[in-house]
């Protein structure tokens, strides 16, 4: 725009800003500038990406535990025929709350939380982009979960399944406020995910350290970029549909009312247009993390870096074109069914490319280390491939019609989601635990928990394939003894007990290792990426001096040592903004610090969301405090009166460059 807005980075030699004396002083200043907010108020105002990311992960695991208890209750109920442990109404609420929690409050946010922590470190940035927005996203996520479980304990938990089909969820059949609770929980969690996705996209595109061109981005970061883009295009669909559902129930619109020109199938289209990409939103972060784990413990880069990225992107694109395979039982035209069968089978191709690349990586390992994270990674191949194979079966219309709404489907998606996301997640948490805490988890307890989980998982879910083929429908609270399903159900319930034991051991390991784990140092596993270049846990400002990169595996190539960044101010929270494609330095930017307004805004938003379930005017009146909070959030503290700027400019003795500094 004008000469004042451009500048060039200089390559200096013998720079005294790299001497240890200077760096010590710099660290002191940075510690002060970036210091964490203190006290309870400070805790509420925190915007540091590591603190917020950690909170995201811990909170998501709390909801995971809640949903796990619900799963255990269901397995107790189903362990023998004609059991009266749970009644049908409570059972409905339990399976709906279980599924809703796992999809919306656990599987997506837990990966987003890890990404909030790890992505800025892996791209060598001092902060995530839009840290206050990320804090707001966390509060919305927390309040959404509290909202769901408060209702569950008040006996108004949603009870119409995690995809909440009308007419069962509609104005006519949905009891009380239960489906509204579901629909509004969706709004909470989607606002949170969309805000986080935006922050991740901008971090990856604009805050990468110099040298990290697009073809040097770590695979986990690539996967989170692709996932964030998917979130941006998929989640609006469920927000639109859940809003329409609330409107139908609250102000008598007729979107899903057949009698007045609406159509319940419109719900299914909108929901699955989100719902199928959702599967990949849960699964692609795991693929990225697996690449990091496999590469680290084989001691070599993952085979086929470019094909890995193209596969991620291809999966994301095809993932938007397969939603109708959830609707084969609704009587769609045959051509449509064939098209979506073909698309669903096509998605096997990019997934296979990745799996073959990993197999090749393990095959040609420089030094294979079977650590706990690596065991979780390897079991992915076994469990996910079983889930993938039953997925190929379900993509075929005749088979889908045969086993629709049976336990075969339950078995399939637990193999895909637990094998494809939870096993890699538990491995990833073990893998990054030292970065977050400074200590390693116990390998002994870790392996014990792993093997128990592996056995327990297969004991629980493999029999469900057989139960489904034998005709046992999902979502029934009990079954007659004469069906002969008792034995396999008992086996599944015993497996669930083993899973519970294993997760308990995992938890004990997490807690005990906080104090007694071996000290990790910067890079205990020998990772290739920049997260290994800083302390564990990292200082608030992440890096000093900020490293740049000259290869895809910067920490494995000490022979290429690109010059680190100097010249960022230590007196303010300054980060380096770079260009999208090749990450050339572009400008310096001051990140905002802690603020209470994200929390206040999230409280105001939550009030409006809950109010609007009961009264449409809640949207109008509830928007006023939100607006006030957002204005106060935005209102700047620093600057000069406009009249002074104008007068100076009119006098002609101020160029933009001078005004800028």
């Amino acid at each position, binding site marked *: *725009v004008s000469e*004042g807005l451009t500048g*060039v*980075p*200089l390559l*200096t*030699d*013998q*720079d005294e*800003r*790299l001497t240890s004396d200077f760096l010590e002083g710099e660290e002191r200043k940075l510690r002060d500038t970036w210091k964490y907010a203190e006290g309870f108020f400070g805790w509420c105002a925190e915007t540091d990406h590591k603190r917020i990311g950690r909170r995201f992960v811990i909170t998501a695991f709390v909801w995971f535990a809640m949903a796990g208890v619900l799963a255990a209750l269901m397995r107790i109920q189903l362990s023998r025929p004609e059991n009266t442990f749970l009644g049908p109404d409570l059972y409905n609420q339990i399976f709906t709350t279980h599924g809703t929690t796992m999809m919306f409050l656990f599987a997506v946010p837990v990966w987003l939380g890890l990404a909030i922590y790890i992505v800025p470190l892996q791209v060598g940035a001092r902060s995530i*982009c839009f840290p206050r927005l990320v804090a707001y996203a966390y509060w919305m996520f927390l309040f959404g979960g509290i909202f769901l479980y408060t209702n569950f304990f008040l006996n108004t938990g949603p009870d119409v399944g995690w995809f909440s089909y009308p007419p069962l969820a509609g104005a006519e059949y949905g009891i009380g406020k239960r489906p509204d609770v579901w629909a509004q929980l969706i709004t909470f969690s989607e606002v949170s995910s969309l805000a986080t996705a935006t922050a991740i*996209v*901008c971090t990856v595109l*604009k805050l990468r350290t*110099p040298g990290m061109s697009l073809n040097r981005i770590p695979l986990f970061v690539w996967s989170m970029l692709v996932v964030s883009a998917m979130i*941006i295009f998929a989640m*609006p*669909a469920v*927000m*639109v549909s859940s809003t329409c559902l609330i*409107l139908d129930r609250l*102000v*008598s*619109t*007729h*979107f899903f*009312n057949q009698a*007045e*020109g609406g*159509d319940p199938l*419109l719900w299914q*289209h909108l929901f699955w247009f989100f719902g199928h990409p959702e599967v990949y939103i849960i699964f692609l972060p795991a693929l990225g993390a697996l690449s990091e784990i496999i590469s680290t413990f084989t001691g070599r880069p993952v085979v086929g870096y470019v094909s890995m990225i193209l596969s991620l992107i291809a999966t994301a694109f095809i993932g938007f074109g397969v939603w109708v395979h959830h609707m084969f039982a609704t009587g769609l035209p045959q051509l449509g069914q064939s098209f979506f069968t073909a698309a669903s089978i096509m998605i096997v191709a990019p997934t296979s490319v990745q799996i073959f690349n990993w197999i090749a990586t393990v095959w040609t390992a420089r030094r294979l280390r079977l650590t706990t994270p690596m065991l979780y990674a390897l079991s992915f191949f076994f469990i996910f491939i079983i889930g993938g194979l039953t997925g190929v079966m379900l993509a075929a219309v005749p088979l889908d019609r045969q086993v629709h709404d049976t336990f075969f489907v339950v078995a399939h998606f637990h193999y895909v989601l637990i094998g494809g996301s939870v096993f890699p997640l538990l491995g990833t948490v073990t893998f990054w635990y030292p970065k977050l805490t400074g200590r390693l988890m116990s390998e002994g307890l870790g392996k014990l928990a792993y093997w128990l989980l592996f056995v327990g998982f297969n004991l629980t879910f493999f029999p469900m394939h057989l139960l489904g083929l034998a005709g046992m429908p999902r979502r029934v609270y009990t079954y007659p003894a004469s069906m002969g399903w008792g034995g396999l159900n008992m086996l599944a319930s015993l497996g669930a007990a083993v899973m519970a034991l294993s997760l308990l051991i995992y938890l004990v390991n997490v807690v005990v290792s906080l104090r007694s784990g071996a000290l990790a140092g910067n890079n205990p596993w020998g990772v290739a990426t920049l997260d290994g270049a800083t302390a564990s846990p990292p200082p608030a400002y992440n890096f000093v*001096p900020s490293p*740049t990169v000259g290869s895809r595996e910067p920490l494995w190539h000490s022979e290429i040592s690109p*010059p*680190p960044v*100097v*010249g*960022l101010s230590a007196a303010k929270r300054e980060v*380096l*903004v770079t*260009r999208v494609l090749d990450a050339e*330095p*572009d*400008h*310096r*930017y001051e990140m905002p610090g802690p603020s209470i307004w994200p929390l206040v805004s999230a409280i105001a938003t939550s009030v409006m969301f809950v109010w609007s379930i009961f009264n449409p005017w809640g949207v109008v009146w509830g928007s006023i405090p939100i607006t006030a909070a957002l*204005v106060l959030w*935005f209102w*700047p503290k*620093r*600057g*000069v*009166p*406009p009249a002074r700027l*104008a007068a100076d400019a009119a006098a002609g003795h101020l160029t933009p460059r001078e*005004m*800028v*500094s």
Partner: protein
Amino acid sequence: VKTAALDVSGLPEVGFGHRSLLWWGTICLMAIEGTAFALVVMSYIYLKGRVAHWPPGFAPPGLFWGTTNLIILLASSVPNQLAKKASERFDVRGVQLWMVVCLIFALAFNIVRAFEFTTLNVRWDSNAYGSIVWTILGMHTVHVITDFADSLVLTILFFTGPIDEHRFVDISENAMYWYFVVLAWIPIYAVIYLAPRIF
């Protein structure tokens, strides 16, 4: 011992357009909102396919107010562009002037929008056609009101201060978002007002 360094202290502290973080954030927001608009339009087309006559049982929405608003919105691009250009020159007076003009346009638009709702010729609870028309128009209205509030706060800030260079980027990105609201209205206008007449 490494002694070479990449000195970035000579770089500016602000960048406009795709150089700025805010631009990318706004692009993400536009992608989210644009997807939502596309989905409600698809729902309109889907519901239309369920019945023999469209609009089912009601006269199409009156053309006058909607068309008036189309003209107002397209015309608002002029002060919007001038405000954007003023911000990129760090021209305080220019920003003040053109933001006020933008606000007048946005206010006029919102007033005419109220009349638009009165001439839709169908209620939201009459049938599914009424529901989708009200929802599409309502969604666009939320965007216009939000951007009006945004612009109002920024304009007040440019009269009261405190401002620094980053606020000029805010003005520039706010202008980009207004273009999104304007451009979104063209297909939405076509769906609400022309589709019932063409089909």
